[in-house]
């Protein structure tokens, strides 16, 4: 069994599993660092997967597909921003609602477009875009790490998530920063969805399958820092790949126990049993700034 793990194939499997988590978690980090809770990552992934599929199908190519995913995700992110930043709706409720909306509308359009309740047709136009997306993901994680900690936008983002009044007193507008953060989050998660669609070569109803919540868990476990969140995603991806490999090899750890791992770890972290998890102080609060 050891030789199963130490192969390139296993490493590839880990990375394949990690990519959508990492992109969604990156988006979630940006959003929550600006002070907006983002339960809607699940929905963003799903919408991205669908719009990517539509893009690849009607645009006859991987580029159109990837663009479709990114734009679809950003648009959905804009809806979320409209609801919670501009209209100041409750972030939890709207996040849950958007997840329901994503599931409903993708199934609806799937039926209407492809006349199927379960999946779109297979799209070979995706080609081998997978490897390039992996590279892109790594670049994006590094890029946003730099953005958040070293650029003016990143400084303002962190300020707005901790003490929006202080930022406002200096002429920085929290609402604007949050809009940008949510658009970016949508685009990133949408890209993650595009990866899913490309990897499976089709859209399957409900294909996000809880990944958005795992990304949320990874973000929390990674202390709301881009690089650490990505590392947490890798950890979860590793666990998942191991579980699959073990099951294939017929070894004992039950699949459902491994599946539980990210969730249990998150609960333990939140309860403060593993270090102090420090959420951005203004998270969830949208006052009159």
């Amino acid at each position: 069994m050891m030789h199963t793990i130490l192969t390139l194939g296993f490493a590839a499997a880990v990375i394949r599993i990690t990519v959508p988590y990492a992109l969604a978690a990156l988006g979630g980090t940006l959003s929550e660092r600006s002070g907006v809770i983002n339960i809607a990552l699940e929905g963003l992934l799903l919408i991205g997967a669908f719009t990517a599929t539509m893009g690849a199908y009607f645009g006859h190519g991987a580029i159109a597909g990837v663009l479709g995913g990114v734009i679809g995700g950003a648009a959905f992110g804009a809806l979320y921003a409209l609801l919670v930043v501009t209209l100041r709706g409750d972030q939890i409720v709207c996040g849950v609602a958007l997840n329901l909306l994503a599931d409903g509308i993708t199934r609806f359009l799937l039926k209407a477009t492809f006349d199927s309740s379960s999946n779109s047709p297979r799209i070979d136009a995706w080609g081998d875009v997978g490897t390039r997306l992996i590279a892109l993901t790594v670049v994006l994680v590094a890029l946003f790490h730099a953005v958040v900690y070293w650029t003016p936008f990143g400084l303002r983002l962190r300020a707005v998530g901790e003490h929006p009044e202080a930022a406002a007193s200096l002429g920085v507008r929290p609402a604007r920063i949050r809009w940008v953060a949510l658009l970016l989050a949508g685009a990133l998660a949408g890209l993650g969805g595009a990866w899913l669609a490309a990897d499976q070569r089709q859209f399957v109803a409900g294909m996000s399958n809880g990944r958005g919540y795992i990304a949320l868990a990874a973000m929390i476990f990674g202390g709301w820092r881009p690089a650490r969140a990505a590392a947490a995603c890798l950890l979860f991806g590793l666990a998942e790949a191991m579980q699959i490999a073990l099951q294939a090899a017929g070894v004992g750890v039950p699949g459902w126990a491994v599946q539980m791992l990210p969730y249990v770890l998150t609960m333990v972290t939140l309860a403060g049993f593993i270090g102090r998890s420090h959420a951005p102080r203004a998270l969830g609060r949208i006052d009159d700034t």
Partner: protein
Amino acid sequence: MKSILPPLWATLIALAAASALIIAVGGGPLAVYRLLLAGTWGNGYGIGQVLFKTTPLIFTGLSVALALRAGLFNIGAEGQLTVGAFATAMVGLHCAHLPAVVAVPLALVAGALGGALVGAIAGALKAWRGAHEVINTIMLNFIVRAVMVGVGAHLFEREQIHTAPVAASAELPRLSRFIPGLHGSAANASLFIAVAVALAAWWLVERTRAGFRLRAVGASPDAAATSGISVPRVQFFALALSGAVAGLVGANFVLGYKHYYEDGFSGGIGYMGIAVAVLGRSRPLGVVLAALLFGTLSQGALAVNAVVPKELVDVMTAVIIFSVAAAAPSVRRRLEAAA
């Protein structure tokens, strides 16, 4: 009175969105709505099905609403109702020698306890570790799902994905047995239990000391703490109670319909409960009415499926939820400015 505005707005917006979608796929909105009404309130069987779908939504809606009154978000109704329904099935299974008047309450209590257990975990973590209940209840949903996979592997009947049937004494009769006009639809006596629980919830929150404390903590935890109310205890109790009410969903599906616990029976009613609670403004009467609306939509979806994908209703549900959520602050602001 003022709190009716957001739900009204929301329903209108949802109708507009739905109509747009219908037109986009080449249908006619009016025809679709007529079909929807015909398939639900237009015939006896439809009415029965609507009531059947309304019942669990009353439970999950109340569950979320009770937590909301205490200032807490219970997104975990899905996991709580799963454990509750499973407990109901397991206890009901062993009630063969008990009369119905003992078997049914016993099975229900098991369901409530099962749901309460899950709710209590999130409650304890919130109350005594300060951990946000939103994430924890979502995490618990997934944990329950994973655990049930393991449990199912051992306990389910071979080749099937459900438990053994409950004893006859634990069954709840279908309403169509007494009202022939309902033509054998799935609506059952658990509807009365749901309404009774709604009344009990109203009485608890508005008329008892415990309910006062709940409302105080929900309105202002600091003021409540300063007055001597134990905020952690109230929060724990609220989430446990919330879980217990969700756990009663088993009454509808397990005792009143299939008579066993089946994997995936829920189909998302835990999350729908959020919609019901939000639309019903967290008041028991509102919850019952909102549950009726969503029950209608749920059954109506099946009726229109020939013409327009049934997922239209899921879209409408989502639009209603966030429309209420987004409309509420703006309505409040406008009313304050006018005052």
